[in-house]
């Protein structure tokens, strides 16, 4: 049984551990050993946390012996390295926090440990979650398990690759403009950004506070739902957190009569969407129709035309402010060559931050400066409101919106590294949900001719997270029945370990 533990769902592992068929420690050792081997090829983890993992597992085993059960009993999880785990480094894949050890625990991770999950390690990301390929990690890029020559997407590329290669069954990511969904799409797994405020941000290192949201990455919709049910809920430490709590889905939705909106501007080659992806989306729509859903084309000009512009004013503005605390004074990296206060600030920040982070701090600082604020930040917020209105209007006509998650499948390393604008375009379909605070999920819907995964994105109205996951599960089921060959596909290298 031990041999293919990595092919099991998180729900199945928890069940095995709770029923004492296997111990959490055995599960943990299995995945730790697997992760150690695979990580040398993929670099999904910045570092593993074997000591913490074993300690947690033994603790869970003891309690299970005492008759307790846990929702995520002994389930190994990868934590994106911009979430604080007490006593463990939080690097944000940045030089400036390279040796920073957190003295406190994030709300989401404390909920995970209470639910019996095991911390396997901290996963790689684009520095401070800024990027769409994980190439902006200050340490080393993560590789896509489906093709080691290509990127896993980003910024939660480490989490996505770790799950896709089954180093862990589930992982946490954070999504500011698509950072969970786009890498999930490129790695052929499920990734979900919940409604803004459904999950506490306390302990998530802030990139853009009004857009950031923690969410699950998993191999299947059910696991994503279970993970979300554990991490969601009101947190008095986060003033923007909602009162609502997400309840794990027990069944899939009946799609009969479901109204699916296809955003015209993102359909059929719009917005640089690759033809193979368009084709795959079209067959998915066909599948939805066969299940009784109605597909309706909707036009959302504001969203398609202005989202990137609005996002690249608001996100860098908030980032420029959130990243001001990395000044070398109290923690993290300090340039020792500095000769005075100003020189310390300048040198520490110039050498501590990578080029993409510097670029966004510069953009944000400019957008907020006196005389430009009205033209940039304020205007962007006004348009953001209009975008939310456009969504609200559209959701009066349809239940969910459907787009490709990413206009491209996994691309080769270096392809977009020197062309920030083309990198930014990767998030064209995912950014709108962040701007409007909506839940959105990416599920695999097929593969391109190079055997690279294609992701389909579903978005719904605020706090319709549960409905969204029920629909995603129905689609996943249908795809499995319809094309079991596609849905059962796994990256080749995952079988080469253990």
């Amino acid at each position, binding site marked *: 049984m031990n041999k293919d533990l990595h092919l099991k769902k998180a729900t199945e592992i928890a069940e095995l551990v709770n029923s004492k068929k296997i111990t959490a420690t055995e599960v943990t050792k299995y995945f730790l050993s697997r992760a150690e081997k695979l990580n040398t090829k993929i670099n999904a983890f910045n570092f593993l946390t074997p000591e913490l993992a074993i300690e947690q597992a033994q603790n869970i085993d003891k309690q299970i012996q005492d008759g307790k059960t846990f929702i995520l009993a002994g389930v190994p999880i990868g934590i994106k390295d911009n979430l604080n785990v007490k006593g463990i480094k939080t690097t944000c894949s940045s030089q400036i926090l390279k040796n920073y050890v957190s*003295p406190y625990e994030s709300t989401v991770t404390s909920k995970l440990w209470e639910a019996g999950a095991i911390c396997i390690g901290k996963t790689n990301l684009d520095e401070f979650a800024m990027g769409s390929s994980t190439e902006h990690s200050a340490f080393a890029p993560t590789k896509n398990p489906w093709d080691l020559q290509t990127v896993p997407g980003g910024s939660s590329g480490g989490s996505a690759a770790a799950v896709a290669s089954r180093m862990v069954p589930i992982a946490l990511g954070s999504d500011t403009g698509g950072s969970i969904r786009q890498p999930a799409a490129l790695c052929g797994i499920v990734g979900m950004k919940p409604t803004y405020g459904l999950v506490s941000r306390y302990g998530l*290192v802030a990139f853009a506070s009004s857009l950031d949201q923690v969410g699950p990455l998993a191999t299947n919709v059910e696991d994503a739902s279970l993970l979300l049910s554990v991490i969601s809920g009101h947190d008095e430490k986060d003033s*923007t957190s909602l009162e609502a709590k997400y309840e794990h889905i027990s069944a899939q939705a009946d799609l009969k009569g479901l109204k699916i909106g296809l955003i015209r501007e993102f359909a059929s080659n719009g917005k640089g969407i690759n033809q193979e992806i368009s084709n795959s989306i079209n067959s998915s729509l066909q599948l939805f129709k066969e299940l009784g859903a109605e597909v309706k084309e909707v036009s959302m000009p504001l969203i398609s035309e202005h989202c990137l512009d609005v996002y690249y004013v608001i996100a860098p503005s908030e980032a420029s402010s959130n990243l001001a605390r990395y000044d070398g*004074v109290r923690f993290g990296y300090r340039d020792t060559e500095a000769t005075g*206060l100003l020189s310390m600030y300048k040198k520490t920040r110039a050498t501590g931050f990578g080029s993409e982070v510097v670029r966004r701090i510069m953009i944000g600082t400019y957008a907020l400066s*006196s005389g430009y604020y009205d033209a940039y*930040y304020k205007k962007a917020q006004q348009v953001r409101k209009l975008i939310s209105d456009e969504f609200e209007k559209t959701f009066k006509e349809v239940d969910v919106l459907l787009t490709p998650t990413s206009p491209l499948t996994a691309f080769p390393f270096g392809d977009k590294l020197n062309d920030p604008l083309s990198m930014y375009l990767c998030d064209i379909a995912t950014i709108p949900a962040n701007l409007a605070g909506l839940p959105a999920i990416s599920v695999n819907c097929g593969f391109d001719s190079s055997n690279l995964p294609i992701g389909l994105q579903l978005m719904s109205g605020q706090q319709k997270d549960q409905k969204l996951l029920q629909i995603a599960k129905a689609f996943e089921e249908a795809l499995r029945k319809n094309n079991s060959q596609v849905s059962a596909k796994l990256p080749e290298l995952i079988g080469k370990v253990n």
Partner: protein
Amino acid sequence: MNSVIEEITKKYEPVIGLEVHAQLKTNTKLFCSCKNEFGGEPNANTCPICLGLPGVLPVLNKTALDYAIKASLALNCTVNPKSKFDRKQYFYPDLPKGYQISQYDQPLASNGFVDLPDGSKVRINRLHMEEDAGKLVHAGAERLHGSAYSLVDLNRAGTPLTEIVTEPDIRTAEQARLYVQELRLILIYCGVCDGNLEEGSMRCDVNISLRPQGTEKFGTRAEIKNVNSFRSIQRAIEYEIERQAEILDEGGEVVQETRLWEENRGCTITMRTKEEANDYRYFPEPDLLPINISSEKIQNIQEELPLLPSKKREIYSQEYKLNEEESFIFVEDLERGSYFDECIKLSNNPKKVAAWVNGPVAAYLKEQRLSYFDTKLSPERLSEVLKLIDDGIVSDSSAKKDLIPDIFTSDLSPIELCDKKGLKQITDESAISGEVEAIVNQFPDQFSELKSGKDKMKSFFVGQAMKRFKGKASPALINKILDKLITK
């Protein structure tokens, strides 16, 4: 006002506005649950939130908000039903996040005023909430520049502040001092600030410009920082009036800048010019929700407001007919004032109560370093003493002389004390009328003079009688008997 300033103000009119930062005396900080406490080991009262560690979020202290609303109402401000927090961004080692959470374009309250004891009125432009920064300790120099190293103490970081900004209504240094004194009292009365200037609970920045007398247009202003005592407020303003007048007299132009008050040297020096001024890049704080305040809440807090100093002064002078000095003391010294207020409820002679509280009571407590409600002399007990005096059972002078310190310390009642000490006066007319008559007979010439209308002789007989009774007969009673003998 000194003569130099007097001379200058014949020519120029100073236009002054003040920004006062007052610390709110909540138990915990503005955005975390750390203790809000002065002193203590450096960085003892800190947590990941007020240290600004990666990933933390602020949560508004509701008591701090209530206190700020209370202060706003006491300053006659309109509390805005909607306001919000903003980030004010600049780099400095005492500012852990690289920004201060403050309020920019939608302050908590606006449009208030303060009535000063001199009859003038200073309008309040706005009152907003913000967090305090930490403190730097410099080694080998007074400030960062020139120090070998500097240490950061973040105990104060995140302390709740209100910033109270006046309109440019102030015209003299003295009025500025009066305003700050009155503001301090109002905040203390509301129980929202301890008003301790030495500990930095209130800090003052002064904006000041001069304009030729009789003109409307404001001159170029300088902002003076670090003005942190009543004395330095007055001194800094007077220094600045002289400095600016000198520049204007020489045909020069005042530079718009921020200046620092140097307490020891008694002057202001340039801190930064307009060109060097920070661009604070304010934007709405995305980690906090906008503040919505219901009219019920405002109503409730309004009802909780105590009697404020100006109203109290009015009652003391108009109702109780106290003189200016007395009412000043009772308004200024909160404990003495409330002791007096308690006593007055039990008496119908405010002047006499005031004289006792400010006289023997205050003197004894000061000497013993005790506070008003800490001795056996409760307001009830003091009123018993005053009643004994009113009833002629003990004389005012012997009560003041002989009942102290026993009325503060003894378990015996005031009347028992008088008995024990033999202070009781003779109140029975029949008991002494014979003796008085004997004295009259002893001095027939003097009595004839008294009878013929020479009233001065009355004190002679009262004196003789007092001698005879060893002071235990009340002069009033002796007078009464004498009157009877005269008309006999």
